[in-house]
């Protein structure tokens, strides 16, 4: 789809990935220092939600845009990460080890699901159907866990209501010292920057190049001797881990509930990636933040349902800018700079 883009990026100097990663982390640190001083508390918590969603969008950008795996169930790993974090934190009454547990659970779930799919030679739409189905199973299951018999250790699963008592992150090793919303925002922004850096560096590595090669032409990559199944599994697991991290961050500004597994989250991530630009990493992050601001704004309108706006945008983007905002914007800019054709 966005083939030429990924190819062009591959020819760029190797060190650009390092520079971009460094710049992203720097930008993250600056945002983490400056924004909490500018924004009010409510806006800050909202911004934390946006950033956690941006991590989710980034994970799908990697899996779909570069791995070519259309995953309709990125929300499954997002929700699993959130639930694992909440359950672990309530049981340990300390979040130090809850975060690694959450990442591990999400990664393991992605690895198992990926193994079933890729080693079963399932591809295309069928991957979409299976990931969607798994998400629906989790959604149904999480919704039916009301009542006292559904608890893991000290953590009640709470069915439809979720776990409103999801604990906030504390200073590592000091369970009593909970972090303020400002600190959680800083952690989220820096986590986003680090995830971006990791994604850039993964794509720059030998592994990443093979993954992109498989996306461009699976048969050719296979004939060249690469084990396609293994590389797909690898990138899918990395994506699952990132989505789990997004779930942890989300749990820290809202709380975990079955809606994390809902169709609307799965749908929204795909919309963000598509609108931002498939085959880029920055595009989906921008698309995510832009559309969330739009949705928040649309939610304040009394006469128009926000779903209408989202739906119309999605249709318009697919019809008018199928490559997404960022690639189309860059192409437009390049044409402008080159001047009119002679």
């Amino acid at each position, binding site marked *: 789809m966005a083939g030429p883009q990924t190819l062009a990026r591959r020819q760029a100097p190797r060190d650009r990935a390092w520079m971009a990663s460094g710049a992203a982390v720097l930008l993250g640190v600056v945002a983490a220092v400056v924004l909490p001083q500018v924004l009010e508390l409510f806006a800050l918590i909202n911004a934390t939600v946006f950033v956690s969603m941006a991590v989710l969008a980034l994970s799908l950008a990697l899996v779909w845009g570069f791995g070519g795996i259309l995953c309709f169930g990125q929300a499954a790993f997002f929700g699993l990460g959130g639930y694992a974090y909440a359950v672990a934190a309530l049981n340990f009454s300390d979040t130090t080890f809850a975060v690694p547990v959450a990442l591990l659970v999400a990664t393991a779930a992605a690895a198992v699901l990926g193994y079933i799919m890729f080693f079963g030679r399932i591809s295309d739409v069928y991957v979409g159907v299976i990931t969607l189905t798994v998400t629906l199973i989790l959604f149904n299951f999480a919704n039916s866990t009301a009542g006292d018999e559904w608890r893991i250790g000290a953590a009640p699963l709470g069915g439809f209501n979720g776990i409103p008592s999801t604990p906030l992150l504390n200073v590592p090793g000091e369970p009593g010292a909970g972090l303020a919303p400002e600190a959680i925002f800083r952690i989220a922004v820096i986590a986003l920057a680090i995830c971006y850096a990791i994604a850039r560096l993964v794509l720059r590595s030998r592994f990443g190049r093979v993954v992109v090669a498989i996306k461009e032409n699976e048969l050719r990559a296979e004939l060249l001797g690469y084990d396609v199944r293994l590389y797909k599994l690898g990138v899918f697991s990395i994506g699952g881990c990132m989505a789990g991290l997004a779930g942890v961050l989300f749990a820290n500004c809202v709380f975990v509930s079955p809606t994390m597994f809902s169709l609307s989250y799965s749908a929204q991530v795909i919309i963000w990636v598509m609108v931002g630009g498939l085959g880029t990493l920055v595009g989906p992050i921008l698309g995510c933040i832009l559309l969330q601001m739009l949705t928040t704004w649309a939610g304040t309108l009394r006469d128009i349902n926000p779903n209408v706006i*989202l739906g119309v945008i999605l*249709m318009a983007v697919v019809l008018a800018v199928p490559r997404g905002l960022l690639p189309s914007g860059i192409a437009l800019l390049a044409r402008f700079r080159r001047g009119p054709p002679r």
Partner: protein
Amino acid sequence: MDLAAAVLLQAVAGVATLLIVSLGLAVIFGMMRVINLAHGEFLMLGGYATVLSVRAGASVWLGILVIAPAVVGAVGFVVERLLIRHLYGRMVDTMLATWGLSLALIGGVTMLFGDSVSGFSAPFGSVPIGRFRISGYSLFLIAMAGVLVLGTWLVLRFTRAGLIARGTMQNPDVAATLGVSPARVYAVTFTAGAALSGLAGGLIAPVSGVLPTMGTAYIAKAFITVITGGAAILAGTLSASALLGTVSTVATFLTTPVFGEVVLLIVAIVLLRLLPRGITGRFLRRAL
């Protein structure tokens, strides 16, 4: 004995519902390779068309059997013109565009009619089976599923339009050289599929109640049934809904409705793992 008969009938009714709900999607997917994610909302529109016409004083049968398919068929015609036509051959893009359509329809209907359940009571009352009673309407649903499958089969197998449709499905280029316009065939197919979805929406309305988000409860199941069925429209949908419907009804009977749904989904995953191209990718390959 009575219990066995009642459970059996319940299972057949479950299969029939799944079949009715999936058929419109299967026609569109099988003929055009277009996955219509707004299918659930087509069902919802059919439900609303029926409820509104019943409220306006029309008879229940007129609402379900005529008004619902006509209204949704018209919607489908417009959607094909404005949206689907520009995206042929781009499967993922059509999925995303129809997803957008689905969101917009949910939002729009919520704005028009509000977020509450409306409906009307099912005709026919209940029928005794020994010590148990089963609703007469589920017997009607079973009959309707039979009529729909038979009707689709007859049209595809024995009419000129069906022949042209099957030919275009197999090879649009050859059909075009022979003087058939694939674009027109696709337009008619999409409209017919939408009308079938509308009819399905009208049929399930008395059972499920009508609300803007009712489509989301069915789209995943219909989608999974069609994909599990594979390429053959009727044989695939029939076999997949027979299998999944029976499994989920039995599991629901033994445990809870939620668990029944979960079992349906798990069976679908296992099946796709074993038969990656659907049931008719392996068996009954030459079936319709």
